[in-house]
């Protein structure tokens, strides 16, 4: 699986209290959330999470009745300078790789850009980025 990071996607109704249920479960078990993205689509939404203890978090959430899917994403390190996003984006576009979605989080002194491409393109995307000197992380 080389440099792919596991992300959990959780189906949530777009209603007060639903997100809180998930964060409560994770907080109670001491699971640290490394990144969080909440997408809404009408009556429902998708909560994308990257946590340290992936297997445990998935098990806990499924036991509580949530519908959870695991997907692979790529996390690249970027400096806090203008033009950094553009470099990554144009590298991939130049090779015909489509970015399905992306979001950011802070990894430390540098920022982290999380990208999802089509599953079949993931390996090639990592190769392209690394060849150009981009730092692809293997954990968050």
């Amino acid at each position, binding site marked *: 699986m080389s440099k792919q990071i596991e992300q959990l996607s959780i*189906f949530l*109704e777009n209603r007060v209290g639903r997100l809180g249920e998930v964060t409560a479960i994770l907080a109670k078990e001491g699971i640290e959330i490394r990144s969080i993205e909440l997408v809404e*689509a009408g*009556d*429902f939404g*998708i909560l994308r999470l990257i946590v340290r203890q992936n297997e445990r978090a998935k098990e806990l959430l*499924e036991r509580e009745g*949530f*519908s959870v*899917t695991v997907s692979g994403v790529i996390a690249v390190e970027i400096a806090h300078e203008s033009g950094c996003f553009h470099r990554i984006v144009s590298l991939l576009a130049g090779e015909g790789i489509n970015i399905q979605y992306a979001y950011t989080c802070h990894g430390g002194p540098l920022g982290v850009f999380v990208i999802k491409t089509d599953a079949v393109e993931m390996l090639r995307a990592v190769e392209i980025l690394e060849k150009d000197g981009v730092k692809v992380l293997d954990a968050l």
Partner: protein
Amino acid sequence: MIWNKVESASREEIEAIQLRRLKETARRVYAINPFYKKKFDELGITPEDIRSLEDLQRLPFTKKQDLRDHYPFGLFCVPMSEVVRIHSSSGTTGKPTVVGYNAHDMEVWNEVMARVYTMSGVTAEDVVHNAYGYGLFTGGLGFHTGAEKIGAAVVPASGGFTDRQLMLMRDFGATVLACTPSFALHLAEVAAKAGADFRKDYKLKAGIFGAEPTSEGLKNEVANAWGIRYHEVYGLSEIIGPGVSCSCEQCKRLHIFEDHFLAEIIDPKTGEVLPEGERGELVITTLSKQALPIIRYRTGDITSLIKEPCACGRTMARMESIVGRADDMLIVNGVNVYPSQVEHVIANAEGVTLNYQIIADKKGHLDKLEIMVEVSDEIMVDNVGELERIRKEIQSSLLNNLYINADVKLVEPNTIERSMGKAVRVIDKRRD
């Protein structure tokens, strides 16, 4: 295998038996029961006026309310000393309906249940896991004594205690499962979650399911989950309990045991008898029961009848699997909708479970329908477009197949109230 050769008698023989027994039953109720005598007299008809099966149409209907009005034993036609069994329905509104059996009736019940088991391929070699509820409900005990009649080993598991039931099914090597379809699905889900290898751990080959209306989609789910042959049984306690009809190995329709139960299909609004093949309300007259004989009982179940002989060799009339209850039918902007039809669409959709709820409401002058469906554990949550597509596909399927415009809403697993018995599928807010 056919239990009783009368099941493949000619139509003439069957009708001759029916006419003879109809006359006997009419005479019995007229002579013994004041309720029936009064109803016959009001119509100016006596048992002697019955000369052909067509004359059945002249006889009065019996409704559930009649049983309630004469609670508990007002419609019995034998003294209490002769009654050997009493059962009653759950009765969610008002008084429960009470039914009684004498020794002769118990023999009839065992006979029809023996036919049910035999047409489902069950013999004395089998182990029957009976998870129908034991007690006042006719399902449990009906399946129990029927199994004893054919000599099969019956495990009286009744309902509840899912994990324990699964253990018994594995350890006792149950070959036949008897329970409601929703419980069968629940058992399969729990077994799957515990990591069961259905082919290796369980020896089930067939199941006899009933007691709730079920869509084709749900039946396929049960059959596929367990890897077994699905047989459907139909019955109601007012007529005898389970054992009024059952599906054979050759056909999805259910053979009615016509030498004991005389079936008609009527238009629920006008009471007019409908021709063969047309859908309407099933009306049943008991032909051999003595403690509680019933004339033209309006079951409230919607189905159709055909009389052609079946590939299995049986000539007894076959009914369609119940389409819905006459009173479950919703009319939404002029279109008739049965919850079972909605269920069928949902069963064929991907990414969702069969836990759904239909909510009918008004939007201005028009009716509007909202259908909530729980997403399944297998659904790929990561793609918004995909989830939307699934939702839209259910909506367009409902429109194209049932001509209804419904707002489909995907909800989280375990959000819709689930009961082990009969789920509340429809909420009609328009009645307020």
